[in-house]
């Protein structure tokens, strides 16, 4: 295993595997600027064989693994040779269409991973209207740099670190600079937030939450209405949500989101001694 030093190393590793692919399989869908940030921070490791490559990056107190393999059998051989899987807590996600025949999950389960969570992607068509200049914002405002620590704590307390990818403090600072976190405050405390990422005509909600002690005060609704009103030029809205979180699903459906058929299966190895809700 070695630390990745450049994007070229990543692309070369992908090409080597792809050249041998009979049934190419992957869970690696890199966003170039985010991948580059990980490489520059020294947070991406690579372990390559001729027909499979795995990428490891640290997240909280465990590893996330992404892979590309020539076929499922090559992937299994690669996993069986990886010491980290035997010694450390590891999370693997498989993103695929819901109706896709599943040949990867059995491979990953066979090396000791168990299903941990299932997320589904929801999407909502936008109206492609020009953004409103003046919106009834209620109490929602864009968060400031001084809110970073409180935002991180709220997200860490409210979401599952294995399944929902808690942002690092550096991620939050970038989002704040880009005006991608809306908040509502009750006195001086952040009561709720909506954290999103917008690229061109698409916008994805990363986190939408109202702190436990401020529930039932319509803060969530204020945040969502503000978000949608200020993004009226967007053509496509998306988000990932726990597939069994019926409360959240109902709220998103209320705002026009529907299942778009993509599923994220989160699997953990036996070194993760945690269940959702604990």
């Amino acid at each position, binding site marked *: 295993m070695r630390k990745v030093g450049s994007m070229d190393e990543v692309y070369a590793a*992908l*090409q080597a595997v*792809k050249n041998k692919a009979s049934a190419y399989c992957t869970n690696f869908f890199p966003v170039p600027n985010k991948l580059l940030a990980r490489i520059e921070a020294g947070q991406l490791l690579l372990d390559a064989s001729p027909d499979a490559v795995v990428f490891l990056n640290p997240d909280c107190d465990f590893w996330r693994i992404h892979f590309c393999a020539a076929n499922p059998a090559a992937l299994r051989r690669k996993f069986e040779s990886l010491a980290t899987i035997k010694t450390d807590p590891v999370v693997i996600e498989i993103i695929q269409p819901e109706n896709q025949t599943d040949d990867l999950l059995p491979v990953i389960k066979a090396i000791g991973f168990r299903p941990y969570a299932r997320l589904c992607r929801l999407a909502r068509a936008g109206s492609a209207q020009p953004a409103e200049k003046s919106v009834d914002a209620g109490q929602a405002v864009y968060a400031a740099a001084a809110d970073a620590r409180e935002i991180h704590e709220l997200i860490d307390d409210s979401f599952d670190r294995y399944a929902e990818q808690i942002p690092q403090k550096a991620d939050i600072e970038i989002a704040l600079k880009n005006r991608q976190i809306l908040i509502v405050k009750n006195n001086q405390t952040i009561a709720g937030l909506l954290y999103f990422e*917008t*690229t*061109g005509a*698409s916008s994805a909600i990363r986190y939408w939450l109202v702190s436990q002690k401020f529930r039932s005060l319509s803060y969530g609704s204020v945040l969502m209405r503000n978000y949608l009103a200020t993004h009226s030029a967007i053509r*496509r809205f998306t988000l990932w949500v726990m597939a069994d979180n019926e409360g959240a699903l109902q709220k998103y459906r209320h705002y026009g989101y529907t299942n778009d058929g993509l599923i994220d299966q989160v699997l953990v190895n036996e070194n993760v001694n945690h269940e959702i809700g604990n």
Partner: protein
Amino acid sequence: MKSVIEILKEIRPEFDFSTSEDFIVDGMLDSFDVVTLVATLDKNYRISIAGTDIVPENFRNLKTITELLVKSGAQV
């Protein structure tokens, strides 16, 4: 054999790919879409797009995708 624009339309039916010069910047294709697109182009044109070519620059618009297909040996 499907055309590139037909394939794109299948992946993201809500967008008009004929009007954009940059699918990535315009938010019409995300990273998952690009990987799906590569797999579909490979199958449709019976080619294997090189790993080193799976970069945003090659998926910006119809022209760059067509150039990538030609480079990869497809008969477009």
